[in-house]
Each structure stands twice: as C-alpha cells, then as structure tokens.
C-alpha cells in the first residue's frame, strides 16, 4: 500500500484531512492542502510569492492554477470515493476565466461520472468570491490499480 493511502487511512480516523498533503512533496512545496472545516472538502493553495506569473498586474501563474485544480481533484477522489489506488491523471483541460490576484486560491471538485476504471472530475477555483471563479477544469483519472491486473481485482 502506498504511503499516501496509509496516510488516508490515518486521516479517516483523525479527521485531520490537511495531513493528506504531507505525503506529497509537490503539494508541500506549493502549499496546496485539503481542508474540511465547513463540512465540504475544499483544497486551498496558500498565497506565497513564488506563485506569481505576472509581476505587473500582479497575477498568479496560470500553471499553478492548473496544478492546484489537479490536486483538488485528486484530494476529492481520495477523500470522497472508495478508491483503492492513488488516482492516475490521464488528462486535464483548464479554462482561465479571470486573472488570479496575489491571495489564497480555493478549489472544490465533484465527480461528473464514475466508471469502473475511469473517473471524470470537474473542479473550480476561486478567491474571495465563490461566484466569480478564476479557473475551472475537467480531468480524467484512472482509478484501477493496473490495466494488466486480473479483472477479478
């Protein structure tokens, strides 16, 4: 079992969902972590200077928004679905709706379609006002351990 899935089992007992991010070096580096203080699983990317992509506006780098939407989808799949493996991303399409100011970015995710092997996830990111998203994404993830595993698994 992977360290992330072990961490998931611990987090399910303790309820401290933010600790899921500790098992992922990139999430730690980017200060991206899930939170469920409101009862809804959300993912927050804490603002820090290294996120800036345009120093003139200033605005957060579009690549980091794509990255945090992907992480939000992964945390959602780990926490809200009965996945037995770490979801493997197949592709993601990000739409950029507004420039993101130098403050925290928050994202929610939902499963649009859960298949046996493939899941389609929609994720949405905003800053102060949830009704004004800065970016949205659709992504596909493989959620079965291995294509060559016997069908009974």
């Amino acid at each position, binding site marked *: 079992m992977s360290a992330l899935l072990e961490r998931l089992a611990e987090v399910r007992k303790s309820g401290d969902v933010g600790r899921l991010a500790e098992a992922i070096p990139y999430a730690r580096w980017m200060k991206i972590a899930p939170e469920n203080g409101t009862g809804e699983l959300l993912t927050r990317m804490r603002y820090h200077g290294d996120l800036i992509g345009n120093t003139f506006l200033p605005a957060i*780098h579009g*690549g980091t928004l794509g990255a945090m939407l*992907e992480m939000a989808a992964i945390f959602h799949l780990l926490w809200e679905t009965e996945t037995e493996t770490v979801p493997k991303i197949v*592709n993601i399409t990000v739409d*950029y709706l507004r420039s993101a100011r130098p403050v925290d970015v928050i994202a929610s995710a939902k499963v649009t379609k859960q298949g046996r092997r493939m899941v389609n996830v929609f994720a949405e990111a905003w800053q102060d006002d949830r009704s004004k998203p800065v970016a949205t994404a659709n992504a596909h993830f493989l959620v079965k351990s291995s294509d060559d595993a016997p069908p009974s698994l």
Partner: protein
Amino acid sequence: MDKAERLALFQMWFSDTIPHNKALGLKVIDARRGFASMQLEWREEFVGNPETGVLAGGPLTAMLDGCCGMAVATMLKEPMPFATLDLRIDYAKPATPGKAVIAEAECYRITHSVAFTRAFAHHGDAKDPIAAAAGTFMLGTKGQVTQAQSIGAETKI
C-alpha cells in the same frame, strides 16, 4: 543581436523575472519565431508520488503553459498583453525520476485576438512524449505589457 544574446534575454524575461518560472528553475533552451523550448530539472519537491519519484502533473503544467506563452511572444511584432485562455494537457507516460524534462512549444496560428499553440514534453525524444499540450491565448488583455510580452519586438525574432 546574436543567438546567445537573444536566448539570454529570453532567459531573463521568461524565467529569471517571472517568480514561478524562476522557482521551477526553468531554463530557456531555444527560441525562434513561433517556437520555444525550455528545460525543467528533476527536483525532489516536484514529486507527486514519493514512492516512485515520478513528477506531479503541476510542474509540467506550469512549464507547458510558460513554454506555450513564450512561443506566442515570439510571434508578436508589437508588444501586447496576453493571457492563457485554456490549456489541455494529455499525460502520455510518467516522467522518469531523476531525469530533466524538455518542453517544445509551437505557436501555429495567430489572429487579431487569439493565438493557438501546441507543445510536447519529453526526455530528449519528441516522438516519445511524457505530455502533450494544446493552449489557446487571448491577445490584448487588460494590464500593462510585460517585458516577456515585448520580447518579439525587442529581439526582432
């Protein structure tokens, strides 16, 4: 301006002075009209799966976005602010742990309002990609034009 001077300028305006690109340590490899190439070194903090050492999608997404944007900038004869409108990434295969990743982007069409780009990320063989990207950019967005967005005019590439 010779090629080395031109690449030094691209390195300065597309990596050294863009905080996130600098944080990723993006190195500009090549730039010519309609084409941009960058390299990302493997680093422990870019890893998505600590058991395998495979990179997370995020650093690749950020590099491909930056590289597509640089390809757009090479097409602009007049400096103009622009921004990513959408970006699709297909993850073809996991990046090999420890290996640098190269991105190559092409801006294949530019209109009054929109620029269209495609890019691949690979370990040196573009026919064996780690990821493929398609990015669309909106031209003439609000805000002051940045040095990166002026580079086409600056270098007369």
